[in-house]
């Protein structure tokens, strides 16, 4: 099972990188989502795969009675999903703002005119 999952992780990561390299803002968002999902898969499989063994301990006991799934990897994945969710939400707002301000979905970095920066303040 693990080799198949490893191959899938690699394919999804590559697809994400390909999407990131397109230079188009919406495809960049898709690339982010793919890459973060593949890294979550990586953490998932590093906690060792098992079938039908929930990470629970029976009520009367203090140690698990048989093999259980690794709860630590689930906790790590939860945290990373939340973090990348926040990142992607921010990124989508950034894309909207740049559509409004730059009027383009394919911005070229460094191609700005040398304008005088405005100052704020008293």
């Amino acid at each position, binding site marked *: 099972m693990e080799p198949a999952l490893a191959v899938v992780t690699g394919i999804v990561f590559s697809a994400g990188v390909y999407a990131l390299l397109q230079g188009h803002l919406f495809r960049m968002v898709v690339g982010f989502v793919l890459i973060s999902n593949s890294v979550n898969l990586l953490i998932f499989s590093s906690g060792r795969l098992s079938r039908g063994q929930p990470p629970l301990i029976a009520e009367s006991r203090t140690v698990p009675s048989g093999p259980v799934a690794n709860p630590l990897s689930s906790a790590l994945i939860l*945290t990373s999903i939340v973090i990348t969710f926040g990142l992607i939400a921010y990124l989508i707002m950034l894309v909207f703002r740049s559509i409004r301000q730059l009027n383009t979905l394919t911005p070229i970095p460094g191609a700005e005119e040398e304008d005088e920066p405005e100052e704020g*303040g008293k």
Partner: protein
Amino acid sequence: MNALIYAMIVGPMIFAVITLFSARDQKLQSIFSVVGGLSLVALAVMLMTVVYNSGMMSVQIGNWKAPFGITMMADHFSALMVLVLNFLGLGAIIYSLSEITGPQRAAGYFPILFLLLAGTNGVVLAGDVFNMYVWIEVMVITSFVLLSMGERSEQIRATIPYVVLNFIASMFVLSAVGLLMGLYGTLNMADLAQKIDAAGSSGLSITIAMLFLVGIGIKSAVFPLFFWLPDSYHTPPVAVSALFAGTFTKVGVYVLFRLFTLLFNGGFAFISPIILWVSVLTMLIGVLGAVSQYEFRKLLSFHIISQVGYMTFGLALFTQEGVAGAIFFIVHNILAKTSLFFISGVSLRLRGTFNLRRMGGLFKTSPTLAVLFFISAFSLAGVPPLSGFWGKFTLVRAGLLSEEYIASGVGLLVGFLTTFSMTKIWNEAFWKRMPTQTRKTELRQLKGWGDVFRLAPIVGLVICILIIGLAPMTLMSVAERAASELLNPGLYIETVLGGNEP
């Protein structure tokens, strides 16, 4: 005194909430922000004193015993970084009072600033690899917001490559963390150190080390991963630029130090030459990039990169003198770099532009600013008796002692080229007469509270540079203690695993 470690993380969060709720009243929010900055510096000073007097300390969050719970650890290096970074945070807060407009305040500038400080404190005090990653992410996300907060289109154009590259770096670090967990079963750094030492290096652990090196290297802006920095650091408001310049790359360097002295030492000694040559190229190419620049902040951004090369050079040497010199250099560089960025902001105020060719005559109109610039810039270049001289001296001496002649030679050459850059700024902005094409309406004088807020942080930083330059022994002794702790991880492991204090 364990509460101090908690306070460094919870404190900024509390102030983030306070400034969020006082956002309607600008004056009240300003007062709370400054109070917050001052109290964080006070707490950091207390932490440093306690660590200096009683040695390193660790806390286990929630009283879960190590290595099962989350550990926070303050050794000399962490406490020193906390002190300098919060001092820098105070400077940025005071400077922001003069420049941040109403809409930016309403968008939550000050709360986000405090959350950024919480993130940096968290990274530096973390004793658990995943926790460190989470705090890095807090720093990164708050930096995204600060970078794009503003109305200018070049900010959006610059944020996008910054976001993408930092995201990729985070994904590399997260992959490395996931693989570490799979390979060793634990993420507590002290426990990992023991397990990695026992297991030696293998194909997978080398991969993990390289993933960390590349991921954190992107964040620290080493060669060839630094191209996001000059493209983005010159766009946000000056206070934000200065804060970024002092915090991000240096926190990245901190993580590199922590990982490669604690976890990947011993059997991974072949990594040192890699880091050495990366440092040499970083130093050289960073400063060469600055040679052609005439935009004040872009020039300084290239210098950030070149100075990071010095710091990783100290790490690559892996000797007591090298690491101590690098730690001293980190502290000096944070102070000098940030003050230079603040000075660029004041010169924007006086001349209306960041373009060096269009500036001039600042020495005549504001000799105070010229003196402040002189001290900061030539400290950066390494001129005695300022702080940069001691940092560079220790590093080059350590390099010569380790018989790395080429690298030390490059270090000296880069110092010379840095002096060239600083002289260029001096000539263009301060010494020469103002070119006649510059519109006279752009000129202003320094007066009023706004400019007090701009100058006060610069004065504070310059005073620190002078103190460190004229009396380097205090900082050097702390740096040496920190270096000996870093290079002998046994004490760290024992404090975390042997202690189990609540």
